[in-house]
């Protein structure tokens, strides 16, 4: 059974006198214990909105969120339900999410105190244990956030989330404000925590490269919708949705072979006025008539894989593994 299960999630933002913006449209995904699920997409695709709705920071306009077998009630007068404490969130910028004037150990102990997870005398020791669990020295407890590098601060933010003894962590772009060397360290820490503690991770990122390296499964979002999901290796080797393929071909290769990434034509449409039919059709290199007026739902295509594309079944049969870079003039 999945630890976190999101079914048919909808988030709309009401706007006075105008059409509401459907930021997340009928999104379903699940995260099992010990599993890392990557949620990738470009800015404005709704991935952060989905993440926030998943942990109850935004009230969804439709769908259900089932956590540890129970439906998660919507945010109630600003307070998250007690049951939701085991569903924790880590944000992009640890400098903004940590209190700059409070010692690290205290901030972690606060989390323990609020949840009544340890006796007063026991909290400092628990805080030190948690810091060591994320690869920091126990002495970090008596220091302040500004004394640490970006990567170390992200470790602290993760340690604080772990204080709640979570079963699932939702991480919103936890790596994108870090330098490459720190990024690799934190990515490895996440894999280690997931496997070592049996934690489910929902990793939101715009960086398909890093998600490919760490995630067991991946969901790809475009303009509010999940357009493809499946095991990371297979999605990477044989994308079923043309948007996934475009994302993969756009990633530069740092190997000195002068690979010129491919651009996607056009612009992301205004989410308040999405295109008819398939939301991707105006930019899709393989779109045909049907795509302009019929909306493809996310449907299972082959084992463990789903895609929202009229051509997905055909693509699954036709395509051979491997995404050899193609050279195209710009």
């Amino acid at each position, binding site marked *: 059974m999945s630890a976190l299960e999101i079914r048919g999630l909808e988030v709309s933002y009401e706007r006075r006198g105008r059409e509401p913006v459907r930021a997340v449209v009928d999104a379903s995904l699940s995260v099992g214990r010990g599993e890392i699920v990557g949620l990738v997409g470009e800015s404005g695709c709704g991935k952060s909105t989905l993440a926030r709705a998943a942990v109850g920071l935004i009230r969804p306009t439709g769908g259900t969120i089932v956590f540890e077998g129970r439906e998660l009630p919507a945010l109630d007068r600003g307070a998250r339900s007690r049951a939701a404490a085991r569903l924790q969130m880590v944000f992009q910028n640890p400098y903004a999410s940590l209190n700059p004037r409070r010692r690290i150990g205290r901030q972690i102990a606060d989390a323990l105190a609020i949840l009544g997870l340890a006796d007063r005398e026991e909290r400092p020791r628990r805080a030190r244990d948690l810091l060591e669990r994320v690869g920091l020295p126990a002495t970090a407890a008596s220091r302040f956030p500004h004394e640490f590098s970006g990567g170390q601060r992200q470790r602290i933010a993760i340690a604080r989330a772990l204080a709640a003894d979570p079963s699932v962590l939702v991480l919103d772009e936890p790596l994108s404000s870090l330098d490459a060397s720190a990024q690799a360290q934190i990515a490895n820490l996440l894999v280690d925590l997931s496997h070592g503690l049996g934690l489910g991770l929902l990793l939101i990122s715009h960086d398909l490269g890093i998600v490919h*390296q760490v*995630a067991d499964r991946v969901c790809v979002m475009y303009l509010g919708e999940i357009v493809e999901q499946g095991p990371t290796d297979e999605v*990477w080797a044989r994308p079923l949705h043309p948007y996934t393929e475009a994302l993969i071909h756009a990633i530069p290769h*740092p190997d000195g072979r002068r690979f010129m990434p491919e651009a996607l034509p056009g612009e992301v449409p205004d989410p308040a006025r999405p295109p008819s039919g398939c939301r991707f059709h105006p930019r899709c290199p393989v779109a045909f008539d049907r795509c302009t007026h019929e909306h493809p739902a996310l449907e299972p295509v082959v084992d463990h894989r789903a895609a929202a594309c009229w051509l997905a079944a055909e693509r699954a049969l036709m395509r051979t593994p491997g995404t050899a870079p193609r050279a195209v003039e710009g």
Partner: protein
Amino acid sequence: MTLLAVDELRVRVATDDRTLQIVDGVSYEVGEGRIFGIAGESGSGKTVSVLALMGLLPRGASVTGSARFEGDDLVAMPAAQLRQVCGREIGLVFQDPLTSFHPMLSVGRQLTEHLRHHYGASRGDARGRALALLEEVRIPDPANAFDRYPHEFSGGMRQRIAIAGALMCEPRLLIADEPTTALDVTVQAGILRLIDRLRRDRALSVILITHDLGVMSALADDLAIFYGGRIVENGPATELLAAPRHPYTRALLEALPHPESGRGEPLRGIPGAPAQPGSLPSGCVFHPRCAYAVDSCRTEVPPLRRLGDRALACPVDPFAP
């Protein structure tokens, strides 16, 4: 032919209680029509080293060394002359075009004021040139775009407009500081292709500053790796990225996910945190994080030695072919 030759460039910044060495003896050459890449992590001095050439550092920064641009030393030049040279000969593009544009002025006004100021061009001439450039950077309907405001464009389109602006005075050199870092990958790819095309069509020299070695691999002809305010390795980009010789360059490349590598292989992070100005280690600035450091690395600053096409600041040279 060399367009710009930077020699022993140093930048010090005095703060209230101490002096920080931000750039510490950097030398490189930018060839005509070539893309010179400057790569490094945050705090490595890559942006400061370039802003210093153009006199764009805040007061309190002291710049020494020389930077010969078409024979004239930019560092020694009086401020007024430097403004003239930079305004006419060097175009600048920054990471976030939304902050480099004035939000209340139309795109057309911002594109043309530069040309009108530096060359006294008439309104009509400047407009004609702006429209041609907007076309060249592939802005749909240039005449319409000319009268619109920066916020009306997407990030990718704004960066294209910023590039058009940088080219208004027909510069010899374009400096692009993290030009695609704020953009999504599919949009980034378009900007990379644009820079590559402009460079070929116009025989433009480019200094490309980015932390993204994938971007470097796509565009750079020559590449310098910055760490702690110094160049640790320098050479032809394809060779340097395919066979890095400095332990830092190698570690940086190994820390990156590679599109063709297998999933589940752990990434190799570099232990410790990047050296920051104000707390630079003695000797080789990378030695505390280096797996190959020997005793002399702790005490002696390794000079950048030329080894064929490559230049390397590492006496150990553990990856010599």
